[in-house]
């Protein structure tokens, strides 16, 4: 609205209010300007008001990338809805940008559409450096060309009226501004800030609250329209947290008392949270000297009868491979959380990918059956840890939990769980080992066996990664290894029998079934819902158990003309040069499902490092179903 640099005009709020079902807001800035803190607070306020919320941080790979650079875009996106919000959504409706260059980074990521309102800091227009003024002007022209609705706003100038150092205060000003524009209750923002800065004292709290109020008051001068996103009413107690925090709470609630880890993005923040909180439930974080040692330490703690967990990402999993094989071979219960990031190699450390499914399943030498779970929501991140621990002990096996950078950093309100004493129960007592029972007393039918723990009299055995007999004795004879492998494999079959077939989202038969796993749940279902509303015959199915697979898949798939996986990992485009139906390299879940069902399962995937937007999936569904109709 205002383009003046002489300060806001003394107008009074006269904005009209527009009701919307949902609204996507972004704050983008250089690193270190506090955009994430402002956005998180905004998300928390929205959740407290009863809105559905999904928050995702925009994180550059460097800690301090150069200022005003495209790749340095740092910030946050908050999607607020009247109903539950399950994913990051499509293009943003409203953006606050502290400089114009960071917007380019987001434009490359297709974060904006024609008409996206951009509140752009205008101080760069009068910057003493000529190149800055030139870049700014050029950017404005470009934004206009692509249809962004840019409003140049004197954010810093307005902010200076209440704060000495605007560099550290502008974020709270922006928070207040957004609260006004999207009809958030400012008082809740004040409370939130008081809570967040409680340790820093009243002075800091007061300063931040002043900035919020100033931003709120400034809002009316910026836009003539406010947006109201009516909240849904809920009596449920909620927690607002990201996937890694949910994992950390899950670890504590699961009665796990040892997390051995080595820093790796994007998994590390699990241990950050635990480092402060774990002692309150009697647990400890061990930061090992490397990924291998972290895994060995955790396995050994479990061997010694303690509940242990390790948390890593792709490159860390590669290093843990040998120990993972040992844990399978020696039947050591262990929870391994794998927060996937972009690969291969060092890849995209801060970006999302689902590229480690096959590495988790098959990445170890020899046959290494293990249980693999994939939470699809932040709530599941919490509960799956508890499930994983129980499964690890019941089936005497490592259990892997595959999440990804999207779940790790996405923030959402979830129902507050009620902690159960039963979750915390120690694995085994230390009473004497039953005489005559061997260390691997495999039940021939199920492969299950009780586990002796150091301290138990009569249970003495030597855990070894060498082929061994029921008595844990090293054995090189032909039968022993065959038997051992069969017993470990049998356990998966037995566990698989206890699973139920997955639910189909939408009609249970039709033209196309979309199959996904992990963090794509919300986007897939949203896209399917949109397509179904248009009359397209599409349903979806989301897998939580990837090893063993949930039963009944073949029967479900058979009820659809085509089955398509949507994944965030690499597959060849079907029409790529030299690519044929025979040599096309397909996405990872598609490979697994083809092997499992012997059906011709197609895939649609990419490795752009971004969460797949519902709009993009929807467009693909329309393209495919249109095409398949044409073929009929």
């Amino acid at each position, binding site marked *: 609205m205002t383009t003046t640099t002489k300060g806001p005009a003394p107008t009074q709020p006269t904005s009209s209010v527009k009701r919307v079902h949902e609204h996507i807001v972004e704050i983008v800035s250089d690193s270190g300007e506090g955009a994430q803190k402002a956005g998180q607070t905004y998300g*928390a306020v929205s959740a*407290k008001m009863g809105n559905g919320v999904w928050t995702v941080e925009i994180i550059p790979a460097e800690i301090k990338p150069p200022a005003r650079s495209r790749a340095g875009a740092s910030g946050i996106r908050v999607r607020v809805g009247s109903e539950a919000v399950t994913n990051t959504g499509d293009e943003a409706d409203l953006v606050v940008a502290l400089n114009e260059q960071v917007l380019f980074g987001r434009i490359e990521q297709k974060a904006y559409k024609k008409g996206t309102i951009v509140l752009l800091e205008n101080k760069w227009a009068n910057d003493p450096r000529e190149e800055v003024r030139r870049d700014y002007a050029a950017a404005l022209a470009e934004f206009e060309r692509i249809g962004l609705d840019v409003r140049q706003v004197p954010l810093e100038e307005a902010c200076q009226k209440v704060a000495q150092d605007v560099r550290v205060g502008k974020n709270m000003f922006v928070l207040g501004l957004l609260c006004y524009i999207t009809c958030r209750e400012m008082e809740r923002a004040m409370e939130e800030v008081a809570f967040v800065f409680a340790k820093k004292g009243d002075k800091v709290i007061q300063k931040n609250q002043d900035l919020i109020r100033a931003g709120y008051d400034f809002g009316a001068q910026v836009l003539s329209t406010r947006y109201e996103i009516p909240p849904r009413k809920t009596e449920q*107690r*909620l*927690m*607002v947290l990201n996937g890694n*925090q949910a994992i950390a*709470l899950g670890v*504590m609630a699961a009665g796990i*008392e*040892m997390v*051995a880890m080595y820093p790796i993005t994007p998994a590390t923040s699990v241990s950050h949270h635990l480092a402060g*909180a*774990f*002692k*309150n*439930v*009697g*647990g*400890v974080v*061990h930061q*090992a*000297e*490397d990924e*291998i*040692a*972290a*895994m*060995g*330490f*955790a396995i*050994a*703690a479990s*061997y*010694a*009868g*303690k509940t242990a967990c390790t948390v890593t990402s792709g490159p860390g999993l590669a290093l843990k491979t040998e*120990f993972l094989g*040992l844990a399978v071979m020696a039947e050591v219960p262990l929870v391994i959380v794998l927060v996937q990031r972009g690969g291969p190699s060092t890849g995209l450390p801060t970006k999302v990918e689902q590229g480690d499914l096959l590495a988790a399943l098959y990445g170890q030498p020899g046959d290494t059956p293990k249980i693999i779970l994939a939470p699809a929501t932040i709530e599941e991140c919490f509960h799956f840890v508890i499930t994983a621990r129980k499964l690890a002990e019941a089936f005497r096996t490592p259990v892997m939990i595959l999440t990804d950078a999207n779940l790790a950093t996405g923030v959402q*309100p979830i129902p*507050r*769980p009620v*902690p159960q*004493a039963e979750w*915390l*129960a120690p694995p085994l007592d230390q009473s004497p080992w039953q005489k005559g029972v061997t260390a691997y007393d495999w039940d021939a039918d199920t492969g299950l066996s009780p586990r*002796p723990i*150091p*301290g*138990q*009299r009569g*249970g*003495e*055995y*030597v*855990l*070894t*990664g*060498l082929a061994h007999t029921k008595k844990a004795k*090293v054995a090189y004879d032909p039968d022993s290894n065959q038997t051992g492998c069969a017993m470990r494999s049998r356990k998966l079959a037995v566990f698989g029998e206890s699973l139920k077939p997955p639910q189909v989202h939408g009609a249970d038969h039709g033209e196309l079934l979309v199959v996904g796993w992990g963090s794509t749940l919300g986007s897939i279902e949203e896209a399917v819902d949109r397509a179904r509303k248009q009359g397209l015959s599409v349903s979806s199915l989301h897998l939580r158990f990837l090893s063993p697979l949930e039963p009944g898949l073949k029967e479900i798939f058979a009820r659809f003309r085509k089955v398509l996986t949507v994944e965030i990992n690499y597959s060849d485009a079907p029409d790529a040069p030299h690519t044929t139906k025979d040599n096309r390299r397909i996405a990872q879940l598609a490979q697994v499902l083809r092997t499992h069902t012997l059906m011709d399962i197609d895939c649609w995937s990419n490795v752009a490092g971004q969460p797949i937007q519902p709009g993009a999936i929807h467009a693909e569904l329309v393209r495919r179903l249109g095409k398949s109709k044409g073929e009929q």
Partner: protein
Amino acid sequence: MFGLKDDWELEIPERYFTLEDYEGGTARWCPGCGDLAVLTAVQRICRDEQLPPEKTVCVSGIGCSSRFPHYMKTYGFHGLHGRAFPVACGVKSRRPDLKVFVATGDGDCCSIGAGHWVHGIRYNMDMVVMLFDNAIYGLTKNQTSPTSPQGLSTNTHPRGAWLPPLNPTSATLGFANVSFVAQTVDWNPLHLYHTLKAAYHHKGTSFVRIMQRCPTYTEKVFAELQKDPSHLLLLTGGDNPELDAASLRMFPNQQAHDSRDLHAARRIAEQQDPLPIGVLFRDPSRPCYEDFTTVGLGMSAADKLRGLEREFDKFSV
């Protein structure tokens, strides 16, 4: 009488352990292998200290000497090549009640597991680490190890090892938070036993390098040392075990050594001929990692539930 219950009885040690209680089957090392001597020494220590077999854990990596746990009738963890340290530390992390012996070789500890060696020493968790140093890869059949003497002909360096060997004792004395370093030889059972026993009684990581004969591949490496005790220098005094007069007569070279003096220990450790044996360094005041990792052990379920509720509160709206 005196209000005692009828079934009250005096607690008397109901178990007495003999060597047999620690013997886990026939060792399959080559005849004449120095590992056998170490195995016997450890079994004797277990018996003399009356360690309950179920409370004793032998951890190893991979290699000839890492078969050690299989020949003990205690709990054992025969893990991965080079990874004995992290496994032993993990065992100890939440189970301070367990007695841990680590068997590792010169390839296992000083080559593939060297990173863990540095940090394992720094963690200083209460355990005895025995470096079986035979200066060769035996199990994989005669490859150069980091402690192979320069010029030693092996299958990987048939014209002789290119580089001078790594000295595990002086290396360990350079690691942060080191608290116990000793050196001994497998062919003197008395010195071996007393050195390992001193190691056992030290709280912290006791690193003992054992010069260990490999009759198959490196018989000659230790032949001179073995034949002529004047190539050995017996360290006395300080934290060294007191040997009787008859035993002392076996060592023509003896030197009083203040094992609390790190600089003196480092100087002596560099010495190759005569080779110093005994406790080179001990500092019982160094922090042990389990003092940190055992925090919270034994917290009641009720306290944990309360703690959990408080953690949930931090995220609640």
